[in-house]
């Protein structure tokens, strides 16, 4: 049976994804995407893949966000 936590986390993911798609400020979108990645990491931990969880936390939430921010700082912030 699905737990409430699972459900909430997945809901949060979807909300984050929609927010990333809708928000016009790129920097905010990237930050929300970082949150999305972290929640994703939690979900993977719950799904029994700690390797993926760690990698996602480091690469998805960490490095990707760095790279996005670096790119935005070199270009422009609004859509």
């Amino acid at each position, binding site marked *: 049976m699905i737990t409430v936590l699972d459900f909430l986390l997945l809901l949060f993911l979807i909300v984050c994804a929609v927010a*990333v798609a809708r928000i016009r400020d790129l920097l905010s979108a990237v930050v929300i*995407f970082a949150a999305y990645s972290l929640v994703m990491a939690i979900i993977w931990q719950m799904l*029994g*893949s700690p390797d993926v969880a760690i990698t*996602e936390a480091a690469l998805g939430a960490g490095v990707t966000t760095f790279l996005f921010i670096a790119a935005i700082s070199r270009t422009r912030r609004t859509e």
Partner: protein
Amino acid sequence: MDTVFRLGDNLYYLAAMVLFIIGFHTMLTHANLIKKLLGMNIMETAIFLFFVATGYIRGGRAPIMQVGQDHLYVNPLPSALILTGIVVAVSITAYALSLIIRLYRHYGTLDANEIALLRAREDE
């Protein structure tokens, strides 16, 4: 009621599909290149979620060997694959970002439509 339960059982797949569609949609319809890239990342993580969910066994444990113990383990193969997938996704993101920066330097905009317009004018 039965349908709801079955839906609940497949919640991860369902969420993965929803995320996939959101990402796909963002990637295709947004003109802003960075938004496209974010959409791409969402799409990819959705696929990874789907993949990991296929290997998940309810009540299984993370596949970490502990001497002298015998457990029901979660299938380790999908997570091993997803590791590779994440790295590939990150490198593609990084490469695309470097291209975007180059484009911005040349065209002064991040809008794919505007860039296409500028290019068409340049070709003439």
